């Protein structure tokens, strides 16, 4: 089966972002960028499905700036077969990204689409579910295990009380949680090979898409800082402080 994986270029997860002084957003100048960690897990899962002989071709797609080619090349080095960049100038909301991905799904007709459950910049946790709604496909969100069983897909999901397993008709949409797999690192020979793999760039216009948004960000502020407290010397002092100063026990 053909597997489509959607990835996003985000601030590296080790970077502690700073809010811009004019409160228009966070400062992304000269900040290290990387593939969203949940998207790495999505790529890894597709590669494992190919290694198991379940997936026949892996197409990786990103909806984002021209620089997202770097992350697409990384995905190709990890084992994706070809890449598509839907190049957009502005940061899009999740619904617009889902509509762009829907256009790619229409073109490519994958049996399975894997996405990260959320991007660590916007923390939206929306795109996979929205793509499922737009395509009319079943969704297996927050997946910790994915198994193809005949013409169905069994997905074990991480939910509040534990785990839930659902059986989905194919084609289906899966979003990854942390425990689905542990992504590999790209080897140097594979990074070299990835440079020769096909990467197609499309524009929203070429896909017949125009984006309208029903929300806008008015301002971005730093959270109220929490100051460090005191170090206590003993358990007895801690208990005394919790009882008499903080009054929480």
């Amino acid at each position, binding site marked *: 089966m053909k597997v489509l994986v959607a990835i996003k270029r985000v601030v590296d997860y080790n970077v*502690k972002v700073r*809010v811009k002084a004019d409160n228009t957003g*966070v400062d992304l100048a000269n900040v290290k960028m990387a593939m969203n960690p949940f998207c790495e897990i999505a790529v890894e899962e597709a590669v494992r499905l190919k290694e198991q002989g379940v997936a026949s071709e892996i197409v990786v797609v990103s909806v984002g700036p021209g620089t997202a080619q770097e992350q697409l090349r990384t995905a190709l080095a990890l084992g994706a077969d070809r890449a598509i960049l839907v190049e957009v100038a502005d940061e899009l909301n*999740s*619904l617009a990204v889902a509509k762009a991905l829907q256009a790619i799904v229409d073109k490519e007709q994958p049996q399975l689409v894997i996405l990260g*459950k959320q991007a*660590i*910049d916007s*923390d939206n*946790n*929306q*795109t996979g*579910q*929205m*793509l*499922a*709604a737009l395509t*009319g*496909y*079943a*969704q297996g969100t*927050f997946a*910790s295990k994915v198994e193809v069983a005949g013409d169905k897909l069994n997905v074990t*999901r*991480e939910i*509040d*009380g*534990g785990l*839930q*397993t*659902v*059986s*989905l008709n194919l084609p289906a949409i899966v979003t990854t*949680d*942390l*425990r689905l797999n542990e992504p590999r690192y790209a080897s140097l020979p594979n990074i070299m090979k990835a440079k020769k793999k096909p990467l197609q760039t499309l524009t929203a216009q070429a896909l017949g898409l125009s984006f309208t*948004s*029903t*929300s806008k*960000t*008015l*301002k*971005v*502020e*730093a*959270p109220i800082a*929490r100051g*460090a*407290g*005191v*170090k*206590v010397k003993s*358990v007895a002092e*801690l*208990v005394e*402080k*919790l009882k008499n100063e*903080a009054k*929480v*026990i």
Partner: protein
Amino acid sequence: MAILVVADHDNHTLAAATLNTLAAAQQIGGEIVVLVAGLDVCGVAFAAAEVAGVSKVLVADDAAYAHQLPENVAPLVANLGRDFSHVLAPATSNGKNLLPRVAALLDVDQISEIIAVVSADTFKRPIYAGNAIATVQSSAAVKVITVRSTGFDAVPGTGGGAVIEPLKGATDARLSTFVSAQLATCDRPELTAAKVVVSGGRGMGNGDNFKYLYSLADKLGAGVGASRAAVDAGFVPNDMQVGQTGKIVAPQLYIAVGISGAIQHLAGMKDSKVIVAINKDEEAPIFQVADYGLVGDLFELVPALTSSL
């Protein structure tokens, strides 16, 4: 203006997070209608009708809704939602699974995990693991929103007297079926509702050592959580994870044991009223947010703390 709140529940009990979402709905203002979709949800519907400030409870009781499969529930919520100014759900795993599907069916952006209501169309929400707070305005005809429980004090579960109205005509999309669930059974308070939370990290060493935390938690009537490092290492199950992508908690007292304090973990607990950190590394970042820090061997300090309570 009327607000539809999608109740979270397990067919038996109304999830506490629903009461926090109702608090957000009250701040937005307007008539509040609660939807209870599930199977044999009579008890949940009655509980929702008892909540102060709810005017009506819509009940969709059908096998198609038994397991909250979004393929079945989302079309129901979207069709009902067209008649409302806002559709709200708690940012629980059910709410997060369902509501973006509803938003896409309504062709509107969703606003995820709000922590404050500025006005009926403007909300605050954390981004970048809580390292920035965005103020977002929605121009959607139907504003689709998930609510982070820690941002709102729960409304009282009693004092209301809403009318209950059954809905007819459920449809099964036949896209998905429920196979099984493995739910943790635990007598301790649920993490997101607990007044005290004790969490362990990589420093616990193994899953067996969490017994020290369970003893302490039982003394305090606390819930027990864990950092991502402890969950990834297989010490404890995933539903105990506190952090950016796990559970978000804001108890009166949070005790972090053997947790270094990665940004992703802090995102899940830094709104706690009082934070205590116990760690052998005095340079650990957790001490930068802790009200009270105790440096030393957790295997001595935690039992000592337990026995002194």
